[in-house]
């Protein structure tokens, strides 16, 4: 295994990043539907979803066993499982892989939790960077309102309660998200994310997202060549 793999693979990797409530999941879903319906080879993967590891993560969160370091490592394990079994082989096979959150989510959250920024980057060194990373940027207040309106029950780690920023989950969530947002802004520069103004209506945003994908990725190469059985 080489550090930060550079060799070209036939597939293309598109990731979306942003705060909870930034609208990124809606957009990547729309991208997935669009590409599927147009007959492209597309694969979708989301953060924290490895069947194997999720069980442990769930238990750790429920029983509040996780420290910033084990939180970082267990999410890195989850990602590695999806990377080794799905993302990398599918890129090799020439698919368009869509990732709802990628390593930058860890870079932002784990740094906000006080982990060493260099260390976090290094434990993820096996993962290649996406061909295109969208950053759904929305004012912090707007993202907070979207989440706090729809779902007042915040989970312990989601609200950053492990950081002891405040005893009130809502207050803690706001303070923690502010830290994450600050990390994201620095990452957006460092990794040249494509910023999408996320304060607009979904269809308006989606037109821009589609255009960018068409400009950056040679889509016809990714059509299915076999007929459906």
């Amino acid at each position, binding site marked *: *295994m*080489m*550090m930060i793999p550079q060799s070209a693979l036939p597939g293309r990797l598109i990731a979306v990043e942003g705060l909870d409530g930034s609208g990124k999941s809606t957009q990547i879903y729309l991208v997935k539907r669009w590409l599927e319906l147009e007959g492209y080879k597309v694969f979708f993967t989301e953060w924290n979803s*490895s069947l*194997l*590891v999720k*069980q*442990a993560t769930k*238990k*750790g969160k429920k029983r509040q*066993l*996780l*420290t*910033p*370091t*084990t939180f970082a*490592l*267990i999410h*890195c*394990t989850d990602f*590695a*499982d999806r*990377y*080794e*079994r799905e993302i990398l082989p599918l890129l090799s096979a020439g698919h368009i892989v869509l990732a709802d959150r990628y390593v930058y989510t860890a870079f932002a959250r784990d740094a906000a*939790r*006080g*982990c*060493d920024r*260099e*260390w976090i980057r*290094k*434990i993820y*060194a*096996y993962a290649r960077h996406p061909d295109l990373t969208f950053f759904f940027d929305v004012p912090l207040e707007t993202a907070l309102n979207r989440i706090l309106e729809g779902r007042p029950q915040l989970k312990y780690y989601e609200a950053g309660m492990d950081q002891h920023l405040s005893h009130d989950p809502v207050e803690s969530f706001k303070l923690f998200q502010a830290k994450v947002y600050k990390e994201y802004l620095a990452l957006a520069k460092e990794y040249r994310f494509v910023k999408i103004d996320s304060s607009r209506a979904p269809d308006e945003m989606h037109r821009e997202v589609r255009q960018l994908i068409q400009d950056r990725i040679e889509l016809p190469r990714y059509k299915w060549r076999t007929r459906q059985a």
Partner: protein
Amino acid sequence: MTTTAKRFFGQGLPGVDPATLRGKLIVIEGSDGSGRTTHINLLRDWLERSGYATEEVGLKRSMLVSEELEQAKQGNTLGPITQSLFYATDFADQLENKIVPALRSSFIVLADRYIYTMMARAIVRRLDGEWVKQVYSIALIPDAVFYLEVPPKVLAERIYRKNQLLDYWESGMDILRGGDMYTNFIKYQRMMVSEFKKMQQTYGFDVVNGNRSPKLVSKDLQAKIAGILGNGAELGQ
């Protein structure tokens, strides 16, 4: 007990000042069948008889992921990077919740294998050595590492005498193609020994000849540890 300042391999754990860790961290490394567990037990008895409080850690013993790791191992479905990180998570959980608190309370921590086994396993599975090192840069540098050296054929004989079955992973069945389990066990263990020999240069292990009677090995270990604790006179030999 004499105290020397603890250090991390790299940047360590957020919020943990190694200067506050007053106990001793003693690691026993060696393959299955090298007598590791026997000697940990003997050392523990000996230390406790002398009034030292001890704590024990080892692989796959974390509250966080031990069950899941065991399950995953049964299915042979883990990729090498995932497997490596899963073990790292297991290690980190024990480091923060067992090793660090015990050392803070001046306990003697006996580690039945440490990061070196995980690093050797990763490297023989052709993962990048630098990467594995970085992952484990959170770990504390032990006060002593004893590597129980036993020839692979002797290891196999000891295991067969006890279990009549070699372990799938300890036989490198996931990376060696062809060959029966015994042949692969010998081959895999030789690969591991050669990684340990390389690490010995870097990390300064104390190599202990494990191919002797438990009594002799134990006496050897006790003498060395008494030296580390700095007051051997108080310890019954």
